[in-house]
């Protein structure tokens, strides 16, 4: 994989498009497939496309971390299952987690064992892949406090475990990072990091680099201050912790900090860009995926939106929320920061994934990170210094007009800024953004990013009365609805060099599952009504699909089994923020149910039911 370089001529791509279009006529139309006009070569004018290659691990057919590799490509070089034979994929075996809640975890595969981290109460299961039907090898129950289940913002999810150094490491909603012996399931260490009584939880998949495991907090609840911590893989001791708000000392900003834009330069901006003391409860949690560049020895991750939600009570840029940090992997020192949404107005978390690529760029190769952000722009950022090379709109947008590349500033439409007591209609994208947490994948073969995302708008209205802990208040009601076209979700193949959609597949519901790209020129993804699909990576055409028992909001993975066969695995179980409509059995007559999703998903309860089952597929 490291030496792989692919080049594509325009001619080549046109040929394959024509071919697929011909096949499409002959078979049943599946899903809402739509081929975009003016199709260009995926690598376009940029010439050769190559993956980020610095020290990328050799693909051994395993899946040891949620993101597959440090670069977060979620690309597997396995090609036994490909566009030619994927139509014959059959169910190989299943496993039920026993938790009918949102299943967002990536199954982890290492040493012929599969590890599943289940939603709260956060049991971890080890399945023996060497035996027929992959029987349970062992399971671990962290016995969490029942208090945790009422706290998590968006259902009771867990995004998966990580394998390193003979250990399987994962986080629990109750705020623990737990390391188990990967063979026996024996507890090796357990570190308490997040305080559930303050509304602080952990849902993210930890990342390990060498001797450290990186963990961040979640919890949109007011009062939470975001952080990332590095724990020693060996014993779970906290090596360092870096906050997302507050004085430079606590953000680990020092002499190495060299942000690209003037707006990020200055002393203690994590204090000065807030009203007094507001940074102490200012949000900026770290619940997305973490990337790592071995050559630079930097980790990259995004920070969540600032709190409180009402932006009028927090004048200022609210550093360092809704942005990307680059930090030294060993010391945690901040090296640069870029803020996608300064003084966030719309709950646009900056936690979306950063995919590390070495891209041909105007005649040279730039080391970049690519991030499809909640605010509706795909950013291509120089990962050595934080300079935004391009920020291209990929979703219907009424709230901003673009990103000024000179200043790095997001350009707002003033009439769409929330104002106290005013109703504002047609806010697009919505609070979950043009794309939420659901991770994209990147295929070095096609040069395309496969971005699962939303196409939604919202109206904001004041509600009459509510209360919490005995204190009455009047809040804001969000009503979400589909954007132009009427589809709430979309899978998009995106050319990061030319900043263009190459193909798109629409879906009635928001696409809340991650994607997986393979060397078999396939993209796997799931839908909220339970379909697990393989799409042709070059056209989007559905090659195969299977209806699972519940809605899919998880992360598909693929691996080589002990029998030498390629398998594809996905957890099925509706939940998460939109899916709480089903998993939490909310009343969709209340359009504010699940913070705005009620009206947008009125029939989701009739098309899917709660579940929590792993499905594994293979060729016969």
């Amino acid at each position: 994989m490291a030496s792989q370089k692919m080049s594509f001529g325009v001619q080549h791509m046109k040929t394959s498009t024509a071919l697929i279009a011909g096949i499409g006529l002959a078979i049943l139309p599946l899903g809402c497939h739509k081929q975009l006009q003016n199709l260009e070569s995926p690598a376009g004018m940029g010439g050769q496309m190559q993956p980020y290659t610095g020290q990328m691990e050799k693909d051994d057919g395993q899946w040891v971390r949620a993101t597959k590799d440090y670069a977060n490509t979620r690309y597997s070089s396995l090609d036994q299952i490909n566009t030619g034979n994927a139509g014959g994929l059959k169910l190989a075996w299943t496993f039920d987690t026993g938790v009918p809640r949102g299943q967002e975890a990536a199954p982890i595969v290492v040493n012929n064992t599969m590890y599943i981290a289940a939603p709260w109460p956060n049991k971890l299961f080890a399945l023996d892949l060497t035996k027929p039907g992959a029987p349970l090898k062992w399971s671990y129950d962290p016995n969490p406090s029942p208090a945790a289940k009422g706290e998590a913002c968006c259902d009771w999810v867990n995004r998966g475990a990580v394998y390193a150094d003979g250990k399987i490491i994962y986080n629990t909603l109750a705020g623990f990072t737990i390391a188990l012996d990967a063979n026996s399931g024996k507890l090796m260490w357990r570190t308490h990091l997040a305080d559930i009584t303050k509304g602080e939880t952990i849902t993210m998949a930890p990342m390990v680099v060498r001797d450290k495991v990186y963990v961040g907090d979640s919890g949109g609840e007011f009062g939470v201050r975001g952080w990332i911590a590095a724990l020693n893989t060996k014993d779970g001791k906290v090596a360092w912790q870096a906050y997302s708000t507050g004085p430079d000392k606590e953000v680990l900003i020092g002499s190495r900090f060299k942000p690209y834009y003037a707006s990020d330069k200055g002393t203690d901006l994590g204090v000065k860009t807030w009203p007094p003391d507001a940074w102490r409860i200012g949000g900026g949690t770290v619940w997305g995926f973490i990337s790592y560049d071995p050559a630079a020895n930097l980790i990259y991750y995004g920070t969540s939106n600032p709190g409180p939600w009402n932006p009028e009570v927090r004048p200022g840029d609210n550093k360092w929320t809704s942005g990307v940090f680059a930090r030294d992997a060993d010391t945690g020192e901040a090296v640069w920061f870029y803020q996608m949404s300064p003084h966030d107005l719309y709950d646009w978390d900056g936690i979306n994934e950063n995919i590390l690529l070495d891209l041909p760029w105007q005649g040279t190769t730039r080391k970049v990170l690519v991030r499809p952000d909640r605010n509706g722009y795909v950013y291509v950022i120089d990962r050595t210094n934080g300079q935004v090379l391009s920020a291209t709109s990929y979703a219907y947008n009424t709230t901003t007009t673009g990103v000024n590349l000179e200043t790095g500033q997001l350009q707002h439409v003033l009439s769409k800024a929330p104002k106290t007591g005013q109703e504002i209609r047609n806010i697009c994208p919505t609070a979950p953004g043009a794309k939420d947490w659901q991770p994209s994948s990147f295929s070095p073969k096609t040069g395309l990013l496969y971005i699962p995302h939303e196409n939604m708008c919202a109206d904001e209205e004041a509600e009459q009365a509510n209360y919490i802990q005995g204190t009455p208040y009047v809040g804001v009601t969000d009503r979400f609805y589909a954007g132009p076209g009427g589809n709430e979700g979309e899978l998009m193949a995106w050319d990061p060099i030319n900043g263009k959609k190459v193909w798109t597949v629409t879906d009635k519901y928001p696409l809340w599952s991650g994607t997986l790209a393979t060397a078999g020129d396939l993209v796997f993804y799931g839908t909220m009504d339970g379909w697990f699909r393989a799409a042709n990576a070059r056209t989007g055409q559905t090659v195969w699909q299977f209806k699972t028992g519940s809605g899919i909001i998880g992360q598909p993975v693929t691996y080589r089994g002990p029998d030498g066969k390629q398998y594809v695995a996905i957890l099925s179980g509706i939940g998460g923020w939109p899916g709480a409509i089903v998993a939490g059995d909310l009343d969709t007559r209340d359009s504010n149910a699940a913070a705005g999703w009620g009206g947008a998903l009125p029939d989701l309860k009739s098309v899917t039911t709660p579940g929590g089952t792993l499905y594994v597929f293979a060729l016969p």
Partner: protein
Amino acid sequence: MSLRFLNVWVSLIFASAMMAHAVALRICADPDNLPFSNRTANGFDNRVAALVARDMHREPVFVWARNGRGFLREQFNKDACDVLMGVPQKMKGVLTTAPYYRSSYVFVNRRQENFKIASFSDPHLNGQRIGLQALEENLSPPSLALIRTGHAAQLVGFNSSGEHAPDIVRAVASRHLGTAVVWGPLAGYWIAHDRLPLKLAPVSPLVDASGVPFAFSISMAVHKKDVNLRDQLNSALSRQEPAIAQILAAYNVPMLPEDAR
């Protein structure tokens, strides 16, 4: 055995005053949220609920549930209990009774000052740190008026539940804050409890320019379909009005007349 039955059963075992043959009235209550409620049923909502239940010849059974995010969804809507306390009269999604009190957000002032801030446009607010309760992910409604009068950068949010509840009034007494705007019952109780040298003034005006109210009439609530129970509660509330007023006075709840706007 249904979950509902199990809940009642468990609560009955621990109920201190079990009445023979009385049908249980299940009341959701927060285990740690004085002055409203706590696990030893020493909050004023516990007392009002018990009084009303017994008036109806029902046995009050408290179902302990943290009254925070997701409470209606995860507890009340799943029939964890029959009755909620302390609900704003106009709240959607439930059926509310006639109000059993009306209060407002209040300015908390130090007694020793020679001024008493009551208005959002009082010049004494200038340059002060102003405490506000944090509710879910926002500051309480008076933040709107304070933003309007140019005080956004002075606002300091406080967690006001559980053990942190008294923090905001204590911060005024200790001069960490110049003043604070707090929901009346919370401020009244903790000032009396801690014997803090503080004085209260209902905020003025009681309604924001946007129409958002700072005064609320507070009711009990039942499931939308329980019209009969709502009517029975209304009768009991009416019969027990003087006793309820005594309970509220004992907790130093600042009261507004029902027609105060």
